[in-house]
């Protein structure tokens, strides 16, 4: 069975599990909303100010919400040792990791799809005309977050204090991603919106580097 087919099966399983309870999704969205509201006390949300601080705030909300949401990814597989059941199946170990990365991407994407319009309304920011390019930037940034976050959730699932450990590991690693995503988003909100190719290329590079690293090291991550 090919890795992608196995990953697709596992993605379907993750989605089925999550959409049945929706606890993870709801909590993530609510938490990100809380962050967005809290930030409103940090500066005066006029149009100009929002355009200046908005992208940063948005991405910080995603980072925080994401790093909380990624923990259960592997932790859930520990009851009944279902991760071992997956490892015993005749599928590549990377399929397991990839399936979870894709699932986490979908969850975070759904959360962002809800949050971005809410943010636009609350902070009087207009995304009209740049929607397509914004989706590209959001996609690449979220991908980087999800790739590294899934790997670290596999690590922190075995550690004590995993809820605290995951953001601790993840956020320093993601500083380049944060800079790139915020800058790319900001240039889309500028007076003359344009897609900053340098930053988009940087994001793509970041994603490729860490996806490759995950692929090379996935055996070490999953072994007993």
């Amino acid at each position: 069975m090919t890795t992608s087919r196995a990953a697709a099966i596992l993605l379907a399983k993750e989605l089925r599990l999550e959409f049945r309870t929706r606890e993870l999704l709801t909590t993530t969205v609510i938490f990100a909303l809380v962050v967005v509201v809290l930030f409103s006390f940090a500066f005066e949300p006029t149009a100009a100010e929002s355009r200046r601080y908005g992208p940063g705030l948005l991405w910080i909300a995603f980072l925080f919400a994401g790093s909380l949401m990624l923990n259960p990814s592997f932790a859930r597989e520990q009851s009944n040792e279902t991760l071992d059941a997956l490892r015993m199946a005749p599928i590549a170990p990377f399929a397991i990791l990839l399936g979870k990365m894709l699932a986490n991407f979908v969850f975070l994407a759904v959360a962002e799809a809800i949050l971005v319009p809410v943010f636009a309304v609350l902070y009087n920011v207009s995304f009209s005309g740049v929607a397509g390019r914004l989706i590209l930037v959001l996609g690449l940034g979220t991908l980087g977050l999800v790739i590294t976050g899934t790997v670290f959730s596999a690590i922190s699932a075995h550690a004590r204090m995993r809820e605290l450990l995951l953001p601790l590991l993840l956020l320093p690693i993601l500083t380049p991603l944060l800079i790139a995503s915020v800058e790319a988003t900001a240039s889309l909100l500028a007076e003359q919106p344009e897609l900053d190719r340098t930053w988009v290329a940087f994001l793509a590079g970041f994603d490729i580097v860490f996806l490759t690293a995950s692929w090379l090291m996935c055996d070490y991550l999953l072994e007993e």
Partner: protein
Amino acid sequence: MKGRITLVLVASALMVFAGFAALYVAPDEKTMHAIQRIFYFHVPSAICSFVAFFIVFVANFAYLATRKPKWDWLGVAGAEVGVVCSTIVLITGPIWAHPVWGIWWTWDARLTSTFVMWLLYMAYLLLRGFLDDPQRKAMFSAVFGIFAFLDVPLVYFSNRLWRTQHPQPVILGGSNSGLDPMMGKVLLISFVAVLCITAVLIADRYRLEQLRSEFEELRFRAESRYAERASKIPQAAREARVE
């Protein structure tokens, strides 16, 4: 043992010599005067923190390739000493900057990268602290270490790109241009001194980890032997009764 004592003495002597040179031999800088002398320890510490970081990377890679515990020992030794070097850089930097430029800190590429590198070191050490099983600890910290090493150039470049788009008024590395030859010599001496100290510290920390591992093994063996003997006593009593 003797070799290590000699090394420590040599490194200490070099350090004292470098300190003396930095304080008295090096010429006074035109604009910054005395405070500039921190530069003789700030720059070498920075270089040594990168060297330590590279050692951690090599150790992590080697551990994943060979699974030999000694590479894990080297990794933790390099990381701890690297944290110390980075901390020195992050403290001496602002001490130097404040009287000279009036600000404690600026978010230029170099400083930000150093700070993030410090955070990554700390995350590495904290991760080890929260993992109990020794094999998992070594394995996962090696994986994280490699990710961290891959990340640092990305941190640096993203900050560079960002800062060229939003130029900052102050750049801290300006003193490198046109270095007085005597200053250069003192810098070299202090660099050698700091490098020696770093090497000695890493070697010592490695040895500590090695000894700790040996101790654990001895204790484990002693405990199992004790448990074996203790449980054989009722066994013997029972056998005596049956026969």
